[in-house]
Structures are given as structure tokens and as C-alpha cells.
């Protein structure tokens, strides 16, 4: 177990290292350089001097190593455009993204698991067909279109919910206000996840229901409800949990667009802004954070998987 953990953490570290190297050289290979330095009011000498101060004149490997050694000391540098420390920028954005995608994840499971179970039990029923049809729709709709439609219906037409942002401008924080702002973006993400989650639950349930131990449980005379909830569902959930590992990178991507539609101040928006102004420290900081979140959550998923299923031995 300890050996497994050590190996996985080492692998994760290597992966994150590679991601940062690739990101670093990619962004420096980009034409144009930081937007900060293309200010037409700066003279050639001033630009030269700024490049020197920012360390952009050094060879790339030297720049990378300097960045890395700073990172290892917890310093992600300072944003070119806002002169804020990158760690502070990320600390103000990351919780917003995690709040949105975490809530969406929980709700998706809460809806998808019962739906998947019911459609597995009543295969080819009207409900099963409806769920299958809906999941096709969920995979084919452009994320932002769904967002726009929801805004049109609930914010513009019905005036029930806010169209975007995280709080009502000018008001102090209150939970009901925050929740009202969460409804629409969460709904978009849930619709996106629902399709995949329901299908996984459904197929896992169908596989499990054909197992011998289900027949045994029924033969013992257990109530059908207990057979399904106690025996079948417990085992069917194992592969569903493992899907999380694949889901998390996708969730980060889905959240990026959803954040843009609903003006949600999260990591996605930060990344778009930073990339388009070639704000090197911010781009690298965001990339590093996203890579860390993804790697950590996939490690946790694997551990949870092994914990839920004693048949799986880590090693």
C-alpha cells in the first residue's frame, strides 16, 4: 500500500513536471511575447530594460529552472498585467471553480444513480428510452448554447434567476443569494454529466443483476428492494466511481465554458484572460494548479476504488 502510494505520487510528480515544461516552452514559443511589452508608448530601450528586469533575456532553460525553483519555494511570481501575486490570484479563483464543479458533481450523482438503476431494472421501458434519448441530447448540445437558452428562459423571460455573476452587485454575502446564482451554471454542468453517469450506472447495474449472488440473494427470499439496494447497487457503484477519474479533466473543461457564459469568476476565465495577454506567470500558475487538481483527484479516485472493492489490490 505504502509502496503503491509512493509510486503513484512519484508518477504524478513526473506528469506535473512534464506538463509544466511543455506549457513553459509552448508559451515562450508563441509569437508576439507578453502583451505588456507591445505597448506602443514604450521606447525600444524601455522594452529592452523591462525584458531584462523580467528575466526574459536569459536562455529558456535558465528561465524555466528559475521558475521551478521559485515554485518549489511557494512563489508563483507576479502577474504582468495586474502586478498581483499569482498565488493570490489563484487563491481567489480556485474556490469558485471548485464550488461550482463540486456541487454539479454531487447533484449529477444524486440524479444519475436512481435514473440509471430504474432504467436498468425496466430495460426498454418508456422511461429507459427517454433516459437514453436524453443522454444522446446531453452529449450533442453545445455547452454554451444550453447556457444561453437557460438564461433566456429563466433570467430574461421568467425573471426568476440572475443571468450571471456570483452575487448581486452591491449586496453583502448571503447564502440564498449565492445559491440563486449557482442554480443555472450548475444546471448546465449537471445536464452535461447526466448522460454519461446515467449510462455507466445503467450498464453496471445490468452486468451486476446477471451475477449469481443476486440470484442467491433472491433465492434466500430477500425483499427485492434489499436485493437491489443492498446487493446490486453497492457492487454496481464501484465502476461508476472509477469513471470519476476520467470525468474530472472533462469537468474542468466544461466548467471553463460555463464560467464564461455565466461570468463566473473562476479558473477558466483567469486562464482565457492570461493566455490572450500572454501573461506568462499566470498561465503557468493556472496550468500547474489545474494539473495538480487533476492528478490529486485521480489518485483519490483510485484509492476510493480500491477501498470500495476489496478484490482490487493496489500494487
Amino acid at each position, binding site marked *: 500500500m505504502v509502496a503503491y502510494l509512493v509510486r503513484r505520487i512519484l508518477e504524478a510528480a513526473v506528469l506535473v513536471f512534464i*506538463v509544466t515544461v511543455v506549457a513553459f516552452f509552448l508559451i515562450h514559443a508563441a509569437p508576439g511575447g507578453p502583451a505588456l511589452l507591445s505597448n506602443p508608448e514604450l521606447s525600444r530601450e524601455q522594452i529592452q530594460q523591462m525584458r531584462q528586469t523580467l528575466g526574459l533575456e536569459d536562455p529558456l532553460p535558465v528561465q524555466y529552472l528559475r521558475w521551478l525553483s521559485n515554485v518549489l519555494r511557494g512563489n508563483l511570481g507576479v502577474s504582468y498585467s495586474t502586478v498581483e501575486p499569482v498565488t493570490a490570484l489563484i487563491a481567489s479563483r480556485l474556490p469558485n471553480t471548485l464550488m461550482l464543479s463540486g456541487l454539479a458533481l454531487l447533484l449529477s450523482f444524486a440524479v444519475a444513480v436512481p435514473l440509471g438503476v430504474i432504467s436498468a431494472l425496466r430495460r426498454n421501458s418508456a422511461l429507459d428510452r427517454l433516459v437514453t434519448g436524453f443522454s444522446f*441530447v446531453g452529449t*450533442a448540445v453545445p455547452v454554451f448554447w444550453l447556457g444561453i437558452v437557460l438564461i*433566456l428562459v429563466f433570467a430574461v423571460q421568467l425573471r426568476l434567476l440572475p443571468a450571471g455573476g456570483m452575487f448581486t452587485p452591491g449586496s453583502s454575502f448571503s447564502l440564498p443569494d449565492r445559491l440563486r446564482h449557482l442554480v443555472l451554471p450548475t444546471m448546465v454542468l449537471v445536464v452535461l454529466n447526466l448522460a454519461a453517469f446515467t449510462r455507466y450506472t445503467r450498464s453496471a447495474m445490468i452486468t451486476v443483476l446477471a451475477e449469481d449472488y443476486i440470484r442467491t440473494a433472491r433465492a434466500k427470499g430477500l425483499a427485492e428492494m434489499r436485493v437491489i439496494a443492498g446487493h446490486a447497487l453497492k457492487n454496481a457503484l464501484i465502476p461508476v466511481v472509477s469513471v470519476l477519474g476520467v470525468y474530472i479533466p472533462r469537468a474542468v473543461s466544461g466548467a*471553463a465554458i460555463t464560467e*464564461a457564459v455565466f461570468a463566473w469568476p473562476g479558473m*477558466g476565465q483567469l*486562464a482565457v484572460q492570461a*493566455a490572450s495577454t500572454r501573461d506568462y506567470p499566470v498561465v503557468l500558475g493556472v496550468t500547474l494548479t489545474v494539473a495538480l487538481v*487533476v492528478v490529486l483527484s485521480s489518485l483519490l479516485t483510485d484509492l476510493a476504488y480500491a477501498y470500495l472493492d476489496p478484490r482490487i489490490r493496489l500494487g
Partner: protein
Amino acid sequence: MAGARVETIGLAAGRPAPSFWAEAWGRFRSNRVALLSAVFLLVIHVVALAAPFITPYDPNAVDITSIHARPSAEHLLGTDENGRDVLSRLIIGSQATLSVGLLSMAIAVVIGALVGGISGYLGGAVDSVLMRFTDGMMSIPNFFLVLVVVAVFGSRLENIVLTIGLTSWMLVARVVRGEVLRYREYDFVLAARALGATGRRILFFHIMPHTVPAIIVSATLGVATAILVESALSYLGLGIQPPQASWGNMLSNSQAYLFQNPLLPVYPGMLIFLTVLAYNFVGDGLRDALDPRTYTD
């Protein structure tokens, strides 16, 4: 692209291909939803190919005298905020949207088939290194990477196609590897080896043709994803750049005029939705038709 090449070689190698494809066609034809989707896709692609010749108006011609015109006999689907004919823009826009989908998938298929084929055939250390790499790539948020790269390098068609292709080959690689592992143990491989065929020849001429059905299925599903990615990039202003039309940028552009012209987002949105849906249905239909054992996704 690669699929077609491998397939003809497969035929030359004396595989009873006609009956296989004929049987698959028979199974595919009996799936009505998939067949209908295939017909829809055929129409869309023919329209895209013929686009410059069939647009009723110049898709970029600005006419400030008829802005936001409702659908009429003159402009079948109305005009947009610059008085441009919406139908013409949809027709010409299909070119950009479909090329992003097809070209990026072509790149993904070539890389995926190479990585998966080599990984599965050689096994051992090469396999574990390549598969670790594939897992690593899979765990990077795909869209995030595409977004950063396109924002940094500029949103030209080549950049968009290349980045989507380079970040979406992993599924193909996994599927191909699985198939190669399976076919590697067959007697025809042993026979080829006994005849003195080199490893490269065995892999590319004897084994790979058998992976074509699996590749077609995952590529079909991949085209759908690529089209969605382009539309999402467009929404963030990083997709195909106006005035060149793509369904993605027409859709995102329409958001600003929701009140003047609520029909504007409906057309490109429906087209993206139907095309992606059709690709998914065709992919599923092909999966059932080409192999009764289903490929997992």
C-alpha cells in the same frame, strides 16, 4: 485517411473483405436511426463541398438596407446584423466546421493508430511507457490545453485543427492497442512470421487492417467531439475568426442580438446539434454493425 490506406492493403492481403463489409452494411441498414443520420451527414457534406456554387448570396456581402430581416422569399432564413444572408453563411460555414471535425480526427487517428499499434505489438517496456504517456495525456483537461494553445498561437484553422488533433488521439490509441493485443495471438500472425515477415510488416500489413472497424467507430465519435470543441472555442472568441463563417462563430455572434433577432442562434445551434447527434448515432450504429462485440468507450 490512414484508415482508407490500411483498408486497401487489407483487401490485397486476401482477406474476405467483401462479405465482411457487405454483412456490416446489412446490419447497419437495419438500424433506421443510424441510416437516417448517415443520409443527413451525406447531405451536409455534399452541401459543404458544393458550398461556393450553391450559396444564394455572397455570404460576406454586407447590406445595411436589410439588417435583421425576417425570413422571406428573398432571404429564406433572414439576414443578420450586417444584412448578410443567413442561409448563405450557414452553407459556407459548414466548410469550416466540418473541416475542423474531419481534419483534426484524421490527425488523431494517425497518431492514435501508431501509438496503439506499436504499444500493443511490442509490449513490454515500450508498451508501459507509451500507455503511461497516453494516460497522462488523458488526465490533462483537453479543452483547457486547446484553449491556452489557441489563445497563444492565434486562432487560425491550422492551429485549431492541429491542437484538437494532438489532444484527442488517446481514445483511438487505447482501442487500437486492445485490438492489436487480441489479433497478435492469431495463427495468421504466426504464419506470417514463419514466412519471414518483419515485425513492421506484420504489424502494419497483417494486424492493423483488422483494427479498421474499431478505428472507424472511435473516429466517428471523435468528429462529433471536435465539432463541439470548435463551437466552444468560437464562443470564447478563439474559434474560426469572422468574417469567415463557421457554425460556431455564427452561434456565439448571435448572442449579442438575441432581442432583435431571436431566430439567429436557432439555425447554427440546430445544425451543430443535429450534426453532432448524427455523428454519434452513426458511430453507435457502426459499432453494432462492424462488431457484434461492442467496443467499450
